[in-house]
């Protein structure tokens, strides 16, 4: 059975569950002191997966909030994908051997291509490539920099190196509840021929249904953050409605 995966997002900063607006570290809202409690509530609502991002890690280039991530993977019955601050094989390996299902390599995909290719060769489907784009170009280093690499070009090249899953974030829409950039997401899926998980801008169950229409093209999931925290809809309803249960 085809199913469209909804990934509730937990972004971590200073051990707390926060949301940033358009990736801006100065535009932070704290949604919970305990990321574990937030994760637990998502699992109760039926989440198969949780998407976790170590924002401090992304900014500093080393893992900072990993203990919070590992606790969720260890103690809850849910798959966890994690990104942020993962720069060495040791970082990747420690997450994978401690119960993390998928490790997201993001900005290093641009700045350290050989590392990413090596990790794809070694760990294959357990690596997801996070591509954050602004106006079609890749953004790096916790979104503080924009590169001159086109997002679809990077996607195509990494697909050749063995990437199976891309997490595509459109920065212009993230945290804005303005609807996802469906066109750009589908373009990425078609260009790579791989699985693309959409991230950014989802504000309604209709947005999710809109994305699900492109499941055949490879758009197989979406990350939902702010819409859940601001109670635009519940995760339980979204999971049920989107998959027609």
């Amino acid at each position, binding site marked *: 059975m085809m199913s469209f995966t909804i990934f509730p997002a937990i972004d971590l900063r200073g051990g707390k569950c926060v949301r940033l607006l358009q990736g801006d570290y100065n535009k932070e809202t704290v949604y919970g002191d305990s990321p574990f409690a937030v994760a637990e509530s998502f699992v109760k609502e039926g989440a198969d997966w949780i998407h976790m991002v170590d924002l401090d890690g992304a900014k500093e280039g080393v893992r900072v909030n990993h203990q919070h991530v590992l606790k969720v993977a260890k103690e809850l019955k849910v798959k966890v994908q994690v990104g942020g601050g993962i720069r060495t*094989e040791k970082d990747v390996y420690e997450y994978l051997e401690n119960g993390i299902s998928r490790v997201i390599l993001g900005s290093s995909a641009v700045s350290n291509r050989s590392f990413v290719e090596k990790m794809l*060769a070694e760990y294959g*489907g357990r690596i997801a490539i996070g591509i954050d784009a602004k106006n079609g170009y890749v953004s790096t280093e916790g979104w503080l920099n924009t590169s001159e690499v086109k997002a679809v070009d990077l996607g195509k090249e990494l697909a050749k190196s063995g990437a199976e899953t891309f997490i595509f974030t459109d920065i212009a829409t993230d945290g804005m509840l303005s609807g996802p950039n469906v066109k750009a997401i589908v373009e990425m899926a078609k260009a790579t021929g791989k699985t693309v998980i959409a991230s950014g801008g989802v504000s309604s169950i209709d947005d999710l249904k809109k994305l699900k229409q492109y499941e055949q093209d490879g758009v197989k999931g979406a990350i939902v953050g702010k819409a859940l925290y601001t109670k635009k809809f519940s995760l339980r309803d979204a999971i049920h409605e989107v998959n027609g249960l």
Partner: protein
Amino acid sequence: MIGVIDYGMGNLYSVSKALERMNAEYFVSSDLNELEKATAYILPGVGAFKDAMAILTETKTDKFLKDEVQKGKALLGICLGMQLLFNESEEHGWTEGLGFLNGQVKRIPGENVKVPHMGWNKLAFQRDHPLITGLQEDYVYFVHSYYAVVNDPDVVVANASYGVTVPAIVGSGNVFGCQFHPEKSGKLGLAILKNYLTFVSRM
């Protein structure tokens, strides 16, 4: 024909590349009907013992492997794949393993050494065995945080030292294991894989 078992715990690429380099006949599959056609198996794996066993049990691959080994087919576990050959692991609470070899998988005590252990260590051969026939002791590449504590010292073919004595190659009958990554261990690693292929071809 070697069947490389794909159970979603990686790392198939480097193992496949090594087999290709040796012109070995192999295929990668998760389908037990397909895998049954193989004459011998390689069980790779990176990750948590508990997660791996959960998948092997859910997909009935655990029972499949026990049946195939019972029939006399050879099985080589690599890294986590080797650890899964033992009775149980203490990783995140006790988890039962495949039970081909007698012993427990425990965390490397990190008092004097860094964990995970990632790097090259020298093998010390303990006895004659088909996997090391004609080979000299040399360095191989390890990536692990856990190691096997064997109940029966006879299963140990080679050790390495990393704070504790780490069984690096184990073997009992048609079941073999390498704690290090032979596919990433240069000439000696490939020679060990080659020995496995030779052993299989003579079965």
